[in-house]
């Protein structure tokens, strides 16, 4: 997995390339926690180029969402493939996250 971080207005956008899985989830966690420490509050994680997320990856997203909310911010997700959306629906995490069709939609209203 690799990820690219950019800033759109005041929103930190993170593109995840490859797989978000048990072997690399802590890289994403570290990146977001560092941004929170720097005062960033609003985040979009974009999965347009993500092939697969395992349960550990889902768990990291839940953990980060909680941490961001504790700091008064919000985490939104975008561009889930049909397969990835199925994983969120099965685990009911689609009720926990605001999931946008694409990055642009996720950025609306922040």
């Amino acid at each position, binding site marked *: 997995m690799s990820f690219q971080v950019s800033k759109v207005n005041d929103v930190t956008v993170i593109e995840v390339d490859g*797989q978000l*899985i*048990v*072997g690399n989830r802590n890289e994403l966690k570290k990146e977001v926690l560092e941004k929170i420490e720097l005062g960033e509050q609003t985040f979009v994680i974009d999965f347009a180029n993500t092939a*697969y997320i*395992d*349960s*550990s990856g*889902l*768990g*990291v997203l*839940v*953990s980060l969402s*909680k941490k961001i909310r504790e700091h008064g911010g919000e985490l939104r997700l975008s561009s889930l493939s049909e*397969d990835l959306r*199925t*994983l969120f629906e*099965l*685990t*009911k*995490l689609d*009720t*926990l996250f605001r999931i946008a069709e694409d990055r642009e939609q996720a950025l609306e209203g922040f």
Partner: protein
Amino acid sequence: MSELTGGDLVLEIPTDIHSISGAVDYVLSRCSASEVSARKLNLNFRVGLTEALTNAMMYGNDHDPSKSVVIEVVMGRDHVQATVRDQGSGFDPRSVPDPTLPENLTRSYGRGLFLMRELLDELWFNDCGNEVTLILRAESCSTFEGGASA
């Protein structure tokens, strides 16, 4: 990762969570002759096998690199089957709470076994709980319909 004899494919891999993805990719590459669709292999079977290996290494073998995990794969015409065995003392799968209940939804762990149950057609544990067998059939009603009861 070493390939052993017996079954259609038998692998022994050391406990290292970074090796899981490569091992799963390798197993899937060997399942292409099955009648199970590529999409089901790439979602249902990938998820099931990944979660089984993760549980085996993290909880079964407790991250101990001196311990290994054995995967035994059987490729039937109309199904694929994988048995994952760790060197731990096992666990009771009935003790794992439903992660979709409201009180568990914000937990950052505990979804692996649930996904296995949802996405595979059959899921069997041995008596002590350190070996799990996953079965995915070609003839499930839909791509995502599993529903193992174990």
